[in-house]
């Protein structure tokens, strides 16, 4: 577990794991697309428009997951003085932003046939939009500070302050009875989704995770090298 904290160990593990990860993600993506388009049935209500779910739901999960990882690492960076936390912060922010963008676009594409409008000002949609803008602010902050130490810590503080938005996104559906339907998978007792639709969803989620991990590894290695070389 040391590689989660120590840059040099991370590098060793990263070189070792990167190739298989890339191949795995390509396979999973192909499988996922195959399953979601051909092998999974239409929904009894929505017909084939439900297929957008196989992109929308994984990207939503990963957007929240990346932000949760960033919050954990900024706590590690600030409270326990682990410099690797700041590296993760700067490296993972764009990946989270891209996932949130995919989530918003696929959500509105799915909303047009289902709800009748591209965008409705509803609790969950607004909080995801706010999450996207918070990601953008983090990326801009990373670009606008010269002093590295100040930049790292201020970004970490902003991630922590922005993490108030995370529970709002998660529970916005239950607090305010909104147009967006309550969480399907969270009811672990009886997930109200049919197994035949569950499989492509899981495959696509893992495909997204693999792709995210691969890009994250690349960006973290770039960040480590750039820190060692110029030490601005």
């Amino acid at each position, binding site marked *: 577990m040391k590689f989660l904290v120590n840059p040099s160990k991370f590098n060793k593990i990263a070189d070792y794991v990167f190739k298989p990860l890339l191949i795995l993600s390509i396979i999973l993506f192909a499988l996922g697309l195959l399953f979601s388009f051909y092998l*999974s*049935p*239409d*929904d*009894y*209500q*929505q*017909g084939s428009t*439900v297929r957008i*779910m196989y992109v929308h739901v994984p990207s939503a999960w990963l957007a929240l997951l990346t932000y949760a990882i960033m919050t954990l690492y900024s706590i590690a960076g600030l409270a326990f003085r682990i410099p690797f936390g700041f590296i993760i912060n700067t490296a993972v922010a764009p990946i989270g932003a891209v996932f949130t963008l995919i989530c918003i676009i696929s959500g509105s594409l799915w909303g047009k*046939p*289902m*709800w*009748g*409008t591209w965008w*409705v000002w*509803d*609790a969950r949609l607004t909080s995801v939009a706010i999450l996207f803008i918070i990601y953008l602010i983090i990326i801009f902050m990373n670009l606008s500070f010269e002093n590295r130490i100040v930049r790292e810590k201020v970004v970490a503080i902003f991630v922590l302050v922005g993490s108030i938005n995370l529970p709002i996104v998660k529970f916005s559906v239950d*607090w*305010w*009875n*909104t*147009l967006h*339907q*309550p*969480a*399907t998978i969270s009811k672990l007792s009886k997930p*109200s*989704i*049919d197994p*035949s*639709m569950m499989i492509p969803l899981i495959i696509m989620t893992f495909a997204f995770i693999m792709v995210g991990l691969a890009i994250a590894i690349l960006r973290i290695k770039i960040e480590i090298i750039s820190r060692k070389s110029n030490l601005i």
Partner: protein
Amino acid sequence: MSLRFQRLLLILLTLVIILSAVLLILYNTRENVSYFYTPSEIDKLDIVINETIRIGGFVENDSFNKISSNSFKFKITDEKASILVTFNGILPDLFREGQGAVIEGAFVNKDIFNATNVFAKHDENYMPASIKEDLKNTGYWNKKYK
């Protein structure tokens, strides 16, 4: 007031404030900040003519009739009260009797509600169309799963 005492005071203050804030917010969001009203809530409130509000509920079974090419009349209910709704415009393709819907509009008079737009609310269960057929002919078809 040494620096450490200030820090202690700050920690105490923050804990008390965060606790009361969370209690305050959770208590108040529970009941009434709602995106839409249910028909039974509407009856309790005094109806204000042509003030735009949103009503959410199920479309009552066999209350849906088509007046002309794009004007419809149906009832929204939540098993406790129901409201007659007139709407002219294009209905989303998910809109059917027994299906959840959120409508936005205003009361034209005491009991007719003229909706300006209709959102079909999709509940969270997904089931393949094929299973719906064999459930139907085996008679297990549950009324709610329309």
